[in-house]
């Protein structure tokens, strides 16, 4: 019985749904102390005084950058234009964004720690802040980059200028996207404990990347890597925000070294999180596209500026968003002539970092807007222009103009299924009926996208960091009782990896799902894993689990063959029972084999070592593209600017869906997050660099009341990896910006150039459209509709 392809109850749900989850915040250790950070209230300033005296006099332990030995995080990249800058664990001499940690105060509880933080005296001499990445810099954020540009790269393919010059239609647009953030339910959290006897540091951290954290902490603090243990227990959402090593993490560990034997705990609150955890998606796109008369996309010229905030995020660098935007801007569309200059510009705002979908919710919005604009001018539908341009199965493998290789190609099929799911023809009919009436107008929006998942060593090169994230390891151990424990390098922030890994191992080894337990998130238990990002774990961590289970199976069969006096190649194993093919009566159970392996060496066949365990790595070398399409219909109330979503459909190529319920959950959740970004979530800085949306009163997260019912469909085209899987963790976020902007623009006959689609943006656009129509009517009829 195969477990893959079914949806057994998730292993983690026994504890998660009964309130027995174990999060860092739950951890209580003897003599534990609590940390509060003193944070800069100003966006850009020199620190003229930093006096911990009054706080120390009141009995608090206080740490400044000098007290921690001046640790600086330097994200590295070998790209020629990259300007390397440093991020101090605690600010020294200067602050670069509001919320930057300046000092840390330790006390017996968090209340007192915050009392102590108020006693630390800091004086600031303000410097002019830069908030917008596409306005001239006021005063450099880092001396090393006088123009604030930390990285710039041009993708160039074909002959863009000549093609644009001769194109039937050229479309020019300037588009900006809204800064928002992953904002997981659990904020960041850590407990660090240094045991001076054997110089061991244990760091419990709500991180997505424990092995990377171990590596970086050991290096930054000068510890032996084997003496650093990073444990990520249950983690309440990550979305990329927790794939970063933060200055607070490093400071916490450094404080632990200064306070040997005392566990120090920092649990971030929401105000700190909104101010100082990574943001994302603050981009501007200047685009010119050329089309032929039949809607074929001929050339695209792009200039993309990404606001990377005050620091080059560690270890991913300021290149993470701009390079992704440039590499994937053309998405699933065939194109030869492509030029894109992308840059990451530092500003006095919180650093931007990886957030589910990295850059593509913005770049897909930009690309789809160009197609919709061209379609309207050419009198085509949004469906036709996409069908005209998508990569097709017969084009696979398709080399995109950025030289990435698309291995999916099922875009048209995804789009067609999504159109069917929303009832496209009926919607168009109803839309037409309402045109020109006072009723709310209906708009239909589309997005096609290719999600690059499971990047192996050849594809993960990206910002040319000093590491390649293509592989993970997994250990499958058959215990003396015949049950299986898996030590996997994957991590989970709610994606159900314990379940999926157990299914993979159960099937590959030939045991029941219930006989497999999975341990994740502890660097002392598993050999290696890069962690959760880039929709990589199902492909890579899953591949490693599959390979190690097969290796363990081989050992089981060799041992069983000796015991049964049969040839290993004649043996089958199913549900934990090994049988000889053709002789159903000759069997041996896995428990007996395992017992021999560990306890009865007297029965061990000749040449077989004790123990039953296997560890394997997996690297897919390339990546697996996951095709996707989303279609939605909305109703726009022109009197208030509000949008109601009538229908939503998403069809993706997840390859083989290992646990269909988890796959659907990933897609639904990522669409919900995308809708949040498209309609509600906006981190707004004022001109002085003050965050105006510093609490959840002003930073609006979608709730279940705002998220529509959706239809999720699949096109299951196995990918070229052992399990045939494609990542599904992020794809859903790629559609909603484009879908909703396209739908509003379709409903009102307006251009949408900025996000989010707040009621005021939509109301203003509707008003403008009404005014234009009035003017245009006098001249003899509107030019659209």
């Amino acid at each position, binding site marked *: 019985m195969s477990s893959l392809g079914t949806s057994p109850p998730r292993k983690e749900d026994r504890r998660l749904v009964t309130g027995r989850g174990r999060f860092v915040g739950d951890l209580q250790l003897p003599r534990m102390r609590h940390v509060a950070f003193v944070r800069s209230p100003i966006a850009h300033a020199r620190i003229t005084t930093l006096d911990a005296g009054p706080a120390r006099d009141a009995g608090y332990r206080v740490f400044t950058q000098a007290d921690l030995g001046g640790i600086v995080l330097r994200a590295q990249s070998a790209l020629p234009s990259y300007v390397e800058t440093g991020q101090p664990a605690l600010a020294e001499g200067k602050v670069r964004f509001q919320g930057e940690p300046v000092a840390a105060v330790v006390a017996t509880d968090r209340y007192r720690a*915050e*009392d102590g933080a*108020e006693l630390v005296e800091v004086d600031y001499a303000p410097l002019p802040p830069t908030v917008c990445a596409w306005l001239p810099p006021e005063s450099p954020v880092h001396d090393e980059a006088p123009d604030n540009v930390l990285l710039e790269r041009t993708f160039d393919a074909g002959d863009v200028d000549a093609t644009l010059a001769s194109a039937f239609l050229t479309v020019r647009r300037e588009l900006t996207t809204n800064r928002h953030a992953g904002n997981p339910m659990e904020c960041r959290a850590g407990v660090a404990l240094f045991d001076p006897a054997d110089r061991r540091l244990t760091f419990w951290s709500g991180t997505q990347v424990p092995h990377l954290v171990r590596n970086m902490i050991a290096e930054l603090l000068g510890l032996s890597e084997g003496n650093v243990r990073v444990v990520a227990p249950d983690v309440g959402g990550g979305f990329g925000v927790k794939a970063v090593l933060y200055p607070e993490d490093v400071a916490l560990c450094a404080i632990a070294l200064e306070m040997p034997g005392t566990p120090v705990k920092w649990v971030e609150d929401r*105000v700190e999180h909104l101010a100082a955890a990574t943001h994302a998606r603050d981009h501007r796109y200047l685009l010119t596209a050329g089309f032929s008369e039949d809607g074929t996309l001929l050339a695209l010229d792009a200039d993309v500026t990404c606001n990377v905030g005050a620091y080059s995020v560690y270890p991913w660098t300021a290149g993470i968003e701009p390079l992704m935007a440039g590499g994937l801007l053309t998405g699933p569309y065939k194109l030869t002539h492509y030029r894109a200059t992308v840059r990451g510009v530092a500003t006095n705002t919180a650093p931007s970092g990886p957030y589910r979908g990295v850059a593509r919710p913005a770049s897909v919005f930009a690309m789809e807007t160009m197609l919709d604009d061209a379609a309207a001018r050419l009198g085509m539908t949004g469906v036709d222009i996409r069908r005209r341009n998508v990569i097709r199965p017969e084009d696979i493998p398709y080399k995109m103009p950025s030289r990435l290789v698309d291995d999916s190609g099922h875009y048209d099929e995804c789009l067609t299924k999504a159109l069917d799911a929303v009832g496209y023809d009926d919607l168009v009919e109803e839309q037409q009926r309402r045109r020109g009436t006072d009723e709310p107008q209906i708009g239909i929006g589309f997005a096609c996208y290719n999600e690059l998942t499971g990047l192996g060593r050849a594809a993960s090169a990206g910002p040319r960091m000093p590491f390649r994230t293509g592989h993970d390891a997994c250990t499958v151990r058959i215990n003396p009782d015949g049950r299986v424990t898996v030590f996997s390098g994957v991590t989970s922030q709610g994606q159900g990896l314990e379940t999926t890994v157990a299914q993979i191992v159960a099937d590959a080894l030939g045991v029941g799902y219930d006989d497999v337990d999975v341990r994740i998130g502890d660097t002392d238990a598993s050999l290696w894993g890069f962690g959760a990002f880039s929709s990589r774990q199902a492909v890579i961590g899953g591949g490693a689990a599959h390979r190690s289970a097969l290796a363990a199976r081989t050992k089981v069969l060799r041992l069983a063959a000796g015991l049964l006096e049969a040839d290993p190649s004649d043996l089958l194993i199913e549900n934990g029972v090994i049988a000889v093919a053709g002789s159903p009566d000759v069997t041996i159970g896995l428990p007996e084999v395992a017992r021999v392996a560990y306890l009865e060496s007297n029965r061990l066949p000749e040449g077989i070592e004790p123990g039953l365990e296997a560890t394997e790595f997996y690297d897919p070398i390339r990546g697996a593209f996951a095709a996707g399409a989303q279609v939605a219909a909305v109703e726009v109330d022109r*009197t208030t600017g509000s949008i109601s979503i009538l229908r939503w459909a998403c069809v993706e190529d997840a390859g083989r869906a290992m646990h269909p319920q988890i796959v659907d959950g990933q897609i639904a959740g990522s669409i919900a997050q995308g809708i949040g970004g498209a309609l509600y979530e906006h981190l*707004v800085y004022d001109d002085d660099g003050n965050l*105006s949306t510093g609490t959840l009163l002003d930073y*609006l997260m979608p709730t279940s009341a705002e998220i529509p019912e959706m239809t999720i469909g699949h096109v299951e085209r196995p990918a070229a990896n052992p399990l045939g899987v494609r990542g599904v963790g992020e794809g859903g976020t790629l559609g909603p910006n484009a879908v909703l902007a396209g739908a509003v623009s379709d409903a009102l006959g307006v251009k949408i150039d900025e996000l989010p689609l707040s*009621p005021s943006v939509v*109301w203003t656009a509707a008003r403008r459209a009404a005014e234009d129509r009035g003017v245009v009517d006098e001249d003899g009829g509107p030019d659209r509709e």
Partner: protein
Amino acid sequence: MKCAPFEYVRPTSVDDVLAALAEADGEGKILAGGQSLVPVMALRMARPAVLVDVNKVEGLSDLECDDGSVHVGALVRHRTLAEQTAHPLLAEAARHIGHTAIRTRGTAGGSIAHADPAAELPVVAVATGATVTVAGADGDRWVAAEDLFAGPLMTTLDPDEMVTGIDFPVPTRWGFAEFARRHGDFALVTVVVAEVDGDLRIVVGGVGPVPIRARSTGAETLGDELTPTGDLHGSADFRRGLAIEMARRALASAGIQG
């Protein structure tokens, strides 16, 4: 986001509340449902030296109907208001306050005393001509709702006074409309239309420092009276446009031609 240190007392009578406030000498604060006060304390933007918890004070949780008016004790929860049937306008307004958990704790007295310009109950209070009962060292005084609200989060209450109840006349005709970004959010604009004793009032919340009682009786002309300011959620024009639309809807639901 942890409160600064404070003293905590929990008196059981209005007199003891007043005594505790007097003793705190301007540094005391009443704690009712805590749904507005506790968040600002957590941000250390409010730092009362003494917190006077009124939740155990007897006799302030009753809702009584008499003679065309509903008397709401200061500790009546929003949830009770939403579920009662004696004052349908109050029920409709209370259903729009936050979410279930907030309505279960938040109190009518707290909402009136907090005077948030975007809150529903102050708009209803002004629209229906409600009377607020205020207890102080010199005994009770009665303040018309219109005279209570002095600005955003500001009232004419003295720091050592307490709201003990509100009398909301039951309107003969009424309409309620509001526009919020998400389900349960504070509204960007609330309009309440209420006719009490033949007197028709249109009152707008969210477009000024206090609930604004319109002079005009039509939605279109109302726009000219308002001077909203732009904020994170949009321009002044957008607010004005919303107010006109909400007035139109409230009037329509009251069965009145805008």
